[in-house]
């Protein structure tokens, strides 16, 4: 049963009006892995995540989730399998942290019913994993940007889905909490609990935590493969237009960028 790929997309194309945002997308994603989605600004990462979440529909081509067309799923059903940490956090009214995280249980709680002990346990665990249990009853308007982001990640964890998609979920976070969240996700992937698909800007985080990388460039899929295969000096130049080198460290590669215009800084003047 689990031989079917988690997601399969064939000749996917997406347009905003007449502007083509993504085209010629063909790839498969397997369950149980940590996928990193990388690419420069405007390469279509967020759009691809929306497509995989089913909140946007392909213009042409086919997208299946667990062997069935994604658009054939009911939203409520999908919400028990897919969770999203969106890039832009919007909180229109002043709920408490606990209320917001409990909303992650919405697809599991029948209408007019109260959350069960299990629901509350899951919410408490998510609060703990994101290190926000002290903020439990704080109204969200009193939180900092990074704290809000952790609340939203906690909500997505509380949703208790097999697949978690993150759209630059760590962009507002300090290093401690970025590493904290990525470690929690890594553990869940390694424990076989989750598949994670995360759009990440920082290539070093992507290299350290992901199994495979999908690279988007110029509205199409540049390449997909294991971190070691994908992350190369050529990729940095061709896709990201920066100069740098990829150092193969013990567990994972790391990228060292040329930060300053000084040509002698890192490479002894033989670059460019």
């Amino acid at each position, binding site marked *: 049963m689990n031989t079917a790929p988690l997601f399969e997309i064939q000749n996917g194309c997406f347009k905003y009006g007449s502007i083509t945002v993504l085209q010629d997308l063909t790839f498969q994603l397997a369950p149980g892995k940590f996928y990193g989605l990388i690419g420069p600004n405007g390469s279509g990462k967020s759009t691809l995540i929306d497509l995989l979440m089913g909140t946007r529909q392909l213009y042409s081509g086919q997208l299946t989730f667990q062997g069935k067309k994604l658009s054939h799923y009911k939203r409520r059903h999908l919400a028990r399998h897919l969770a*999203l940490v969106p890039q832009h956090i*919007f909180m229109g009214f002043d709920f408490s942290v606990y209320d917001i995280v409990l909303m992650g249980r*919405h*697809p599991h709680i029948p209408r007019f019913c109260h959350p069960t002990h299990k629901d509350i346990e899951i919410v408490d665990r998510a609060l703990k994993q994101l290190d926000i249990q002290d903020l439990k009853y704080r109204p969200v308007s009193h939180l900092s940007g990074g704290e809000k982001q952790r609340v939203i990640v906690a909500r997505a964890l509380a949703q208790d889905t097999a697949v978690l998609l993150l759209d630059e979920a760590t962009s507002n976070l300090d290093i401690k909490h970025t590493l904290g969240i990525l470690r929690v996700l890594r553990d869940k992937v390694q424990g076989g609990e989750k598949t994670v698909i995360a759009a990440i800007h920082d290539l070093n985080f992507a290299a350290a935590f992901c199994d495979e990388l999908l690279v988007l460039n110029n509205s199409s899929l540049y390449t997909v493969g294991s971190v070691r295969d994908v992350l190369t000096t050529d990729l940095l130049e061709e896709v990201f237009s920066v100069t740098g080198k990829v150092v193969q460290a013990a567990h994972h590669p790391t990228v060292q960028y040329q930060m300053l215009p000084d040509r002698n800084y890192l490479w002894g003047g033989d670059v460019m």
Partner: protein
Amino acid sequence: MSHSMKPLSPYITIFLFLALLCSIIVATGMGYLEITPQEIIKVLFSHLFSWSFTGEIDKVLPFVILDVRLPRILVAVLVGGGLAVAGCVFQAILLNPLADPYTLGISSGAAFGAAIALILNIFGITLASWFSVPLFAFIGAITTLYLVFSLASNDARLSSNTLILSGVIVSAILSAGIGFIKYLADEEVSIIIFWLMGSLVGTSWTDVILVSLLFLPSLFIIMFYSRDLNIMSLGTTTSDTLGIETEKVRRTLLISASLVTAACVAVSGIIGFVGLIIPHLLRLVLGADNRVLLPACFFGGAMLLLFADTITRAILPSELPIGVLTSLIGGPFFCYIFRQKQLGAG
């Protein structure tokens, strides 16, 4: 934790319900003829359950209570509650604390309909005005709602900005129409103006039934989706991914709240303030959870309008437009709460 928000007890709803019940009984007793609460309860029970009580009940009391005061009081309760609930729904859906039941132009539509009925009356085309004004107002409101929706419909997601803008455009056109009718009415323009400021004078059991028929199904629908409404305040993307058919729910709730508003406007004219301030005020006090807030808004709105109507009916020497009174009572109170909240938060 200075800014803690503990989960609320459900007792607040029960408390507000009892407070409303007491207000209804007290208000029924007030007026030209003072009636004690005991007498009111006796009359009600003997009427509803055919109980007989020892001691005489004045023969005029059942008439005053059941035929004169109670319909008007119940209309005040339903209209006040309805406007506050509708306002709460509009604020939650449009994600705008400044939204009120009239944001989508329903008041202008209703006023336009009512103005047409009134001007026809003035010109001698009588359509039994006690009936035609509410009917025309209701038709006007519903037509406006339809226009606003079709104007906004090329935005498939029915976003808040598109809806508000469509409402503003339709309202502007209708306001010009109302202005023209006022001009035609010439010296008898005061009838239209008085209607526009809202009044509960002369409401009957027909009005109570009309409002209840539209109100009860809509209220059920609104409560049915109250948890979805909470989640929709986090934006369309989030509510979609949490399993809510956001567009469908949004459309259903907007239509339900608009029907409630249209019914309220049809029987009472345009009563401002209740639908804007009551939800806002209660949200400051009770928090944003619509499952608690919506019932509280009903009771709060009902009590405010009942209070205002009782003042104009029983205390003031002559009847004032109720819309003016609600703002005069509610405004300063809101300023006080708003200030307290600011000081508390600062």
